[in-house]
């Protein structure tokens, strides 16, 4: 039985990170995520762990990746403008197959935008923000318990797949104070792997779909980690066959293991004729709207995506077999709705409830959209 507390969303994420084993935080303050850094600056030193405020977001993610390579579990938190700055190093983490967790508490954009208002407008950026072919894992909690559990899951996924993981949040769930039962530490499962043994410095050698046997620095192997494309030793190469193989290995490391990565929640879906696809703050309004609609006899259900990337394509396709009306609810000018449209066949009626003015949808507004369907 855990402890019941009233906590701010940002603090819930920070607490969960420490429970997941986070022992290094490097960050730069930015509204609406600064509370994560402030909490970490107080709590990490108490445990003898590392906290440093760097000179900008680029330096923050750089320090996190460096610490991760030196054996720590690193976290940084930011919002839109900082997330844009972090893209280059996100690519470095993908290329080097380095675990790191990045929280993006989304606010109105683009550019400086609306620092104190929510949006869900960085969804596509989370997938494609950095250049080059790269897979990415992004998760997005909506309710307070999910902020806790998804943060733990993000750390576990990043350790399991040697990849950066993005935790998307929005200004509403990040800043809202809600009551939550913090689980007992014994109830939390932290992914850990026994130490790899690497022969002949083959730190990236593996079969398709597997993880590399990569080790951290200072483990007795004089390894080389590079942002340049590299061979199985990590040494730079431009050999076409080697390059193509590495690209495939990095992609399939994620895409061959979707069962471990995709997570979602379903509400009232068994006999639904209309499906709402949503996430984050919009999912909360949508759930209330679905409950109100059901009271009025409308057969509508909610599919709440917890894993945003990779996109739950297979899961949606399954539901499209019997549900032919989909409403995507998101606080932007249309981002995830394009993914839904891409996955839906021609006989599916896909619509979207969109808004990008910094005001979250009320349940009544979502209910109105359901009724208009």
């Amino acid at each position, binding site marked *: 039985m855990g402890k019941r507390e009233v906590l701010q969303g940002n603090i819930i994420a920070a607490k969960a990170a420490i429970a997941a084993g986070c022992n*290094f935080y*490097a960050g730069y303050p930015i509204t609406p995520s600064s509370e994560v850094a402030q909490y970490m600056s107080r709590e990490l030193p108490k445990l003898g762990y590392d906290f440093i405020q760097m000179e900008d977001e680029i330096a923050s*993610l*750089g320090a996190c990746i*460096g610490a991760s390579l*030196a054996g720590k579990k690193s976290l940084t938190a930011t919002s839109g403008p900082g997330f844009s700055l972090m893209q280059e190093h996100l690519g470095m983490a993908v290329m080097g197959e380095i675990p790191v967790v990045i929280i993006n508490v989304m606010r109105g954009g683009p550019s400086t935008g609306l620092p104190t208002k929510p949006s869900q407008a960085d969804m596509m950026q989370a997938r494609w923000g950095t250049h080059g072919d790269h897979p990415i894992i992004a998760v997005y909690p909506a309710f307070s318990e999910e902020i806790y559990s998804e943060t733990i899951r993000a750390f576990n996924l990043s350790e399991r797949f040697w990849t950066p993981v993005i935790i998307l949040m929005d200004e509403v769930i990040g800043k809202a104070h809600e009551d939550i039962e913090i689980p007992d530490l014994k109830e939390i499962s932290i992914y850990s792997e026994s130490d790899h043994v690497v022969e002949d410095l083959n730190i990236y050698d593996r079969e398709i779909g597997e993880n590399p046997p990569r080790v951290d*620095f*200072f483990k007795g192997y*004089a390894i080389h980690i590079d942002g340049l494309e590299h061979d199985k030793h990590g040494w*730079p190469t431009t050999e076409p066959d080697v390059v193509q193989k590495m690209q495939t290995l990095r992609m399939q490391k994620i895409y061959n293991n979707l069962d471990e990565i995709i997570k979602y929640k379903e509400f009232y879906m068994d006999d639904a004729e209309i499906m709402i696809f949503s996430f984050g703050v919009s999912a909360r309004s949508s759930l209330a709207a679905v409950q109100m609609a059901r009271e009025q006899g409308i057969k509508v259900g909610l599919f709440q995506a917890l894993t945003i990337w990779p996109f739950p394509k297979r899961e949606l396709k399954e539901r499209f077999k019997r549900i032919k009306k989909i409403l995507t609810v998101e606080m932007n000018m249309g981002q995830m709705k394009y993914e839904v449209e891409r996955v839906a066949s021609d006989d599916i009626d896909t619509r979207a409830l969109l808004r990008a003015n910094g005001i979250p949808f009320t349940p009544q507004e979502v209910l109105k959209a359901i009724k208009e369907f």
Partner: protein
Amino acid sequence: MRDYERYIRYRTFPTPWCPGCGDGIILKAIAMAFAELELDPNEIIVVSGIGCSGRMPTYFNTNTLHTTHGRALTFATGIKLARPEKTVVVISGDGDALAIGGNHLIHAARRNIGIKMILINNGIYGMTGGQVSPLTPQSFITETTPYGNIEPKFLASELLIAAKASFVARETIMRLLPLKQVIKKSFQHSGFSVVEVISNCHINLGRRNKMKDPITMNKWIASRSVSKAEFEKLPPEERNHKYPVGILWEEKDRLEYSELYYKHIVPSAKEAAKKSEGKHE
């Protein structure tokens, strides 16, 4: 076997640099410094950014990391804070240290984080084909200053002293043994240390400015270095063409960043934790 060869990763040889490039000399000097200090290769990490200097870690038989342009110091900061007992070396060139990376440079210096930096000053962006850098002498011709460079160059060592770096030295690739000596001293310094090495890029800078072979360019480099004492005696108008070499600034008493963190922050935090524990449960 020479004692310094233990720190060389021959499996990745030959090096990618042009014939006669000073980068090879610097590689040797650093390896010699490691050897004289009898450091364990597994306890060392060499981090670099992008450029010809950025290729250097590949050739060290230690932990090595090749990062993004200008940000090597940020990765190294994370590594040093995570593992304060390790030797963390950063190798940067003109752009990596003073253009895109300029901000990280002054903050690393200010923080006095125990990173050992080797700043290779060859006055050009060599890797990308010879564009002007913040260290290119005024009036020189480069690929992006075809009519002559109108910007004055940074005095890298002097800038670092102003940014509160606690150990600053300058040497040239023409003086291998003094270079090795000063690098060794910088490794023994506990705070942030920088060794600025004047190097030759005859292919990209020299060739466009009447010094197309390494021997001519090296003579030019050698002719401009003077001792600190001699430099003080020079009249101001001559100082433009010379630079002082040797250890230019050294503060032995300043606490290194991670020392300060573990001696001050962590105990204060643990104190605070004890006090609040008494209050709650």
